[in-house]
């Protein structure tokens, strides 16, 4: 009997390219990834963006300052309030206006609610990317309650346009405090459920622990901010290090982890949810009385110069860079969006992982495509 032996030197394997996106269930929108694969192993990821580029920076150049926030709603639509707040704060700082305490506290509560809503959506989509479809509905169920609170006070659910230069659009609704407190109570009871379904699940842990490692040094060098950066140990919480609004008067922990893998990024966000609940809990009973808006001129003109404002959105650090030439329109507006820098590190993180891991890594970066494309 002759035995045939496989001569592994003559068998040639070949890398091949796969276009993941722009229409793909787990690229969360119209992101396209050109994957270089060998079998299941990812060798290179080349993100191709721009499918939803809307030229917001160019549009801002022809808008007045109080009109800009409504465009930023459409950038990172899951942290619309933080985007609005960033522009409002930048204009206020440039004009050196001090907004009333009431505005600061309302903005902070709103920002934390928005962060919660964003993290809830992230959580359910994360579950869905990992194949657990049920989490999707549980996350959305809880997010709906926050959106109802938004609708009652801001009049909109997603594109709030609530923060305006000099204050907020409306005063809070009379029911606001009660509903927020109800929500905190409800959601504290629901958080263990999140842990039982995903965080503790052996399949989920096996799939995430040790995958997509990003060291602290790399996180800083690649500018990976937000919960993704903090999971690598990069202390980048703008709320803590450059406090704005009412963050200097609340006690909260900056969630820092050292592992830097997919599970750490997941856990950082879940921990941040309960941290956000804490922040809201501290503020909701102490909303100072006062105006919800400073008297502003009809046409806002910024002094000549360059102004930069950093805020912490749900995805990381958002920067608004306004160059003003003293006219009623900005000369140049640049948004340093968190997803943009986080995406840049994707290739670095996902060398040598499998396709399924790539989906998980992308999910923990929590990309919102209009935020990247702007």
């Amino acid at each position: 009997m002759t035995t045939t032996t496989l001569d592994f030197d003559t068998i040639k394997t070949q890398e091949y390219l796969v276009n993941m996106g722009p229409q793909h269930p787990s690229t969360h929108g119209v992101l396209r990834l050109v994957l270089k694969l060998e079998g299941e192993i990812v060798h290179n990821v080349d993100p191709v963006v721009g499918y939803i580029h809307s030229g917001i920076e160019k549009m801002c150049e022809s808008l007045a300052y109080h009109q800009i926030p409504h465009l930023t709603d459409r950038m990172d639509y899951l942290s619309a309030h933080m985007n609005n707040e960033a522009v409002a704060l930048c204009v206020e700082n440039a004009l050196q206006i001090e907004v009333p305490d009431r505005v600061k506290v309302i903005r902070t509560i709103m920002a934390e609610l928005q962060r919660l809503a964003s993290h809830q959506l992230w959580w359910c989509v994360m579950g869905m990317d990992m194949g657990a479809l049920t989490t999707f509905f549980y996350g959305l169920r809880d997010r709906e309650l926050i959106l109802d609170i938004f609708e009652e006070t801001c009049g909109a659910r997603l594109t709030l346009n609530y923060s305006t230069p000099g204050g907020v659009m409306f005063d809070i609704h009379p029911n606001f405090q009660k509903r927020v407190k109800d929500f905190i109570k409800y959601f504290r009871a629901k958080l263990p459920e999140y842990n039982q379904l995903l965080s503790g699940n052996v399949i989920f842990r096996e799939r995430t622990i040790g995958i997509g490692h990003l060291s602290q040094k790399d996180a800083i060098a690649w500018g990976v901010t937000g919960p993704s950066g903090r999971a690598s140990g990069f202390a980048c919480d703008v709320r803590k290090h450059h406090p704005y609004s009412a963050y200097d008067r609340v006690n909260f922990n900056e969630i820092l982890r050292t592992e830097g893998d997919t599970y750490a990024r997941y856990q950082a966000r879940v921990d941040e949810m309960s941290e956000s609940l804490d922040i809201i809990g501290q503020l909701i009973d102490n909303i100072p009385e006062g105006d919800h808006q400073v008297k502003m001129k009809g046409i806002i003109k910024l002094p000549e110069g360059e102004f930069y404002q950093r805020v912490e959105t749900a995805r990381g650090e958002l920067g608004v860079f306004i160059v003003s030439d003293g006219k009623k329109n900005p000369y140049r507006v640049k948004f340093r969006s968190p997803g943009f820098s986080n995406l840049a590190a994707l290739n670095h993180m996902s060398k040598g992982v499998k396709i399924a891991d790539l989906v998980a890594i992308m999910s923990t970066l929590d990309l919102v495509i209009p935020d990247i494309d702007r």
Partner: protein
Amino acid sequence: MAFDIYDFTSLTSSIHEGLATFLPPVGVLVAEWLLVGISVLLFVAVFGLILVYLERKVCALFQQRLGPMRVGKWGLLQTVADFIKLLMKELITPNKADKFLYNLAPFIVIIVTFMAIAAIPFAKGLQAIDFDIGVLYVSAVASLGVIGILLAGWSSNNKYSLIGAMRSGAQIISYELSVGLSLITMIILAGSMQISEIIQAQSTGWFIFTGHIPAIIAFIVFLIAGTAETNRGPFDLAEAESELTAGFHTEYSGIKFAFFFLAEYVNLFIVSAMATVLFLGGWMPFHVGSFEGFNAVMDFVPPIFWFFGKVMFVIFVIMWFKWTFPRLRIDQILTLEWKYLLPINLLNILLMTLIVLMGWHF
């Protein structure tokens, strides 16, 4: 015609005799083939639709939703509407696809499920063929379905489909082992491979109760491996929609897609039916020792309801898996099989042999 819901033997034999009165023996055979073929076809179509509806309702309930509610009362006709829609859809064949294999693949997948159903005993006497190697036959035929999946993935000329098919191939070939070994565990206990005899052996008590720990372990292993073999979540890597859009059936549309879809649910039924036959006593009613009154009440429920009740229970558990767990990665699936299920299974067979040899089972 004598119709007895407790024993279909009289019904089938009376049909046989009735046919024999006016047909030659060959004609009787052909007529019976046709009859069985049509009833299996009807059963697959109707039960498939019911399962799709159930799946949607069950998953909706797990997810705090209502599920389909619009077509008919509680959306009962939703799957019928979906099926009509699928029938009317255009059949698309991608450019440069291997046309012959591409069109063949869905038929292989669906034909295999028909073949497996032939050996399933629905009630006493209601079984198309009672092979003396019935268990072997079902497990052999059920594993043929992977050929269809591989062909579909290969011939679609789509990289996603190919990855899905390759995953599916690796997965099903591995899990075939676990299914086979856990079946062997139960065959050792039953002492026969003939399905009717296995069920008869459980008339005093279902194997899951009489077989001690090894039977329970074999049941759990069979459930896991069976879920994996039907390509259902959390083992749905072949179609992993968040990674491969739809895996091996990405390019299929219309009735060909419907075949894959239907085959998945019929496979689910076959796996549940095998679990029922081997572990839960087939169509045998639930008896508790010497509680004569209780046993009589249990006997009053016809066997066919017992069978379908048990099958539905197993299907529900498998659905429960799917709608709770995240999907595994391909290397983890293989690790689970080769490092966990296989050694456990081998030990389990030894344990079962010991128990049977020592006569410790009930």
